[in-house]
């Protein structure tokens, strides 16, 4: 059976599974999902959180980024896992004790102010929409390849499917669907990794294969890779830093703090029965995430190795363009892989030198999807990877769209502007909000600011600079008042947005960038994707100073903080 048909079948089957589960779960257990007291087991919740968490950025994009960034790609690995430590210790158990349903609701109550709640909603929407842009990039890449169309068309198809999926399955039964999606995506990720690791090193465990010797030689894989890439003028794989050490530090920090500040992940911890479960559930989520995240470095290094070997099979002998493999031709159709025969010899010269390099476009986001083809794995494995990538993108997009929709319909409409709104209108408002978010994110996704993982990193920076500090200070410092929190959030996100926009363009439209995305213009050499950590520091400082010169929070708020600090008396989370 040819690859195209097989892909349709595998993707179709998994979609049928998700929709089936959504319908089945809707029948009796809707309440169990919304009302935490009903109880999603912490292990199951951890698995669903992992699916919610791991998006197109983790699945499709991250290993491709690491493949070309080498050691520098570690910022994603550490950043997107280390944040769970912060989440488990600083936020999850306390927010679970507080027992409301949305993040802005906590901020509104803790800072006894509707204004604070509105600011939180705005920050949440900016961060989440940016995040969805990153998903759209990943979805666009996946669809363009499997429908064999250009990126733009792939993106449009993807938008349509996300829309149907989020509106239909998004509201109900999402936890069970996400458990199924986790299973699909983790199989799809690890199976090709195991095959490739076996091929290259003879060790079936990719985490060990990466540290092993190549089959039939006593050279270690990583040493061989270092050698191959440096010969073509690229930086050594295992020591290639992401700009400066300071930049790596700030970038990692920004992703970690952002992880703990993203609303769609935080709300997952409202669905467990007890405060104690919120703590362990974060651990289980990280266990399931770790399976993919420790495999990713192996996928990255081995994909780079196979890619190099395809283009330069023996030292100094380059691939003849007319004899290029099928995957090369397929990806050329998407416009994400491009060859220009600069010296007209019909060979594919690939090097770090811009003037002689003939692989003019190698989009990082294609690496994970192309990897099984490059390694000549059977077609069913390739089809499985397609299904996995879509599962990752869809589960996260649905979670994010739900967070955006609930912020608009529940926090803005019902909570602030129209307290008397009927349940039906609230639902309508949330559907419109979802459609709007997909439209905006899809539109901006035609010219994404960065590769999928880079775009998502921007979203994390925005969440890190606004929401995380307000939540953390709300729990750990009784003295922070509404003036401080509001000023802090506005200052944090403004500094970050200004920095990002001046380099990446307003709303990431590159032509409106007024300083150019040039490293020499960067503050202390920190790239815009990493600036959220600086924004968070600004947020903390401003909130602290403003709170000192304004009035203490009222008595009942201080008592509320006392009460969320101990687990007893948590009760059921309230849906509204």
């Amino acid at each position, binding site marked *: 059976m040819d690859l195209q048909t097989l892909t349709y079948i595998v993707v179709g089957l998994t979609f049928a599974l998700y929709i089936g589960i959504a319908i089945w779960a809707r029948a009796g257990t809707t309440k169990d999902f919304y009302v935490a007291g009903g109880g999603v087991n912490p292990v199951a919740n951890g698995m669903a959180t992992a699916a919610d968490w791991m998006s197109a950025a983790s699945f499709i994009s991250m290993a491709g980024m690491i493949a070309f960034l080498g050691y520098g790609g570690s910022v994603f690995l*550490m950043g997107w896992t280390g944040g769970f430590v912060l989440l*488990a210790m600083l936020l999850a158990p306390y927010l679970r004790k507080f027992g409301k349903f949305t993040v802005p609701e906590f901020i509104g109550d803790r800072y006894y102010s509707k204004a604070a709640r509105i600011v939180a909603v705005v920050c949440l929407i900016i961060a989440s929409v940016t995040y969805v842009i990153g998903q759209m990039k990943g979805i666009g890449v996946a669809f363009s390849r499997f429908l064999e169309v250009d990126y733009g068309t792939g993106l449009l198809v993807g938008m349509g499917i996300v829309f149907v999926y989020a509106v239909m399955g998004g509201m109900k039964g999402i936890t069970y669907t996400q458990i199924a999606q986790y299973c699909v995506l983790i199989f799809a990720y690890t199976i090709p990794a195991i095959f490739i690791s076996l091929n290259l090193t003879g060790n079936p465990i990719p985490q060990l294969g990466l540290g092993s010797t190549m089959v039939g030689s006593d050279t270690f894989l*990583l040493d061989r890779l270092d050698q191959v890439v440096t010969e073509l003028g690229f930086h050594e794989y295992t020591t290639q830093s992401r700009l400066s050490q300071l930049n790596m530090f700030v970038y990692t920090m920004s992703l970690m703090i952002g992880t703990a500040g993203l609303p769609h992940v935080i709300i997952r911890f409202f669905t467990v029965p007890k405060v104690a479960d919120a703590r362990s559930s974060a651990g289980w989520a990280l266990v399931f995430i770790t399976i993919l995240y420790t495999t990713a470095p192996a996928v990255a290094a081995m994909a780079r190795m196979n890619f190099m070997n395809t283009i330069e099979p023996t030292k100094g002998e380059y691939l003849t363009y007319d004899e290029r493999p099928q995957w090369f031709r397929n990806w050329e159709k998407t416009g994400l892989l491009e060859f220009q025969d600069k010296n007209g010899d019909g060979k594919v010269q690939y090097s770090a030198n811009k003037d002689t390099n003939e692989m003019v476009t190698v989009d990082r986001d294609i690496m994970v999807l192309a990897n099984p083809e490059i390694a000549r794995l059977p077609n069913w494995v390739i089809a499985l990877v397609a299904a996995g990538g879509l599962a990752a993108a869809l589960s996260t997009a649905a979670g994010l769209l739900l967070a955006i929709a609930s912020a608009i319909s529940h926090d803005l409409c019902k909570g602030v502007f129209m307290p008397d709104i009927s349940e039906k209108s609230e639902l309508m408002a949330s559907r419109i909000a979802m459609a709007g978010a997909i439209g905006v994110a899809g539109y901006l996704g035609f010219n994404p600011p960065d590769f999928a993982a880079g775009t998502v990193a921007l979203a994390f920076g925005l969440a890190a600079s606004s929401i995380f500090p307000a939540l953390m200070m709300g729990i750990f410092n009784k003295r922070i008042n509404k003036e401080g929190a509001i000023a802090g959030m506005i200052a944090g996100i403004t500094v970050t947005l200004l920095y990002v926009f001046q380099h990446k363009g307003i709303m990431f439209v590159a032509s409106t960038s007024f300083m150019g995305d040039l490293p020499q213009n960067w503050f202390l050499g920190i790239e815009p994707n990493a600036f959220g950590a600086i924004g968070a520091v600004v947020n903390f400082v401003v909130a602290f100073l403003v709170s000192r010169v304004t009035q203490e929070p009222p008595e009942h708020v201080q008592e509320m903080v006392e009460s969320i600090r101990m687990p007893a008396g948590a009760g059921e989370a309230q849906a509204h």
Partner: protein
Amino acid sequence: MAFKSKEDATAYWSANVKLMLTLLAVWFVVSFGFGVILVDVLNQIRIGGYKLGFWFAQQGSIYTFVVLIFVYAKKMGELDRKYGVEEK
């Protein structure tokens, strides 16, 4: 359910903060310490094909994070019971 006394409440909270800070110190050392700041020094040491600093940045720190969260959950459970503030 609440604390028996004001002192208990303070003691519980400071024990929690102390545990948290200890674990966060480990969190910082394995990632920012071994994975970023000291990476070049640790890269002098090798385990198999891995340079140690590179291993911490791409493997070791992540395993440590998982252990940290479960240690925290377990110790906090003990603390809750000691002060009688666990959920029934």
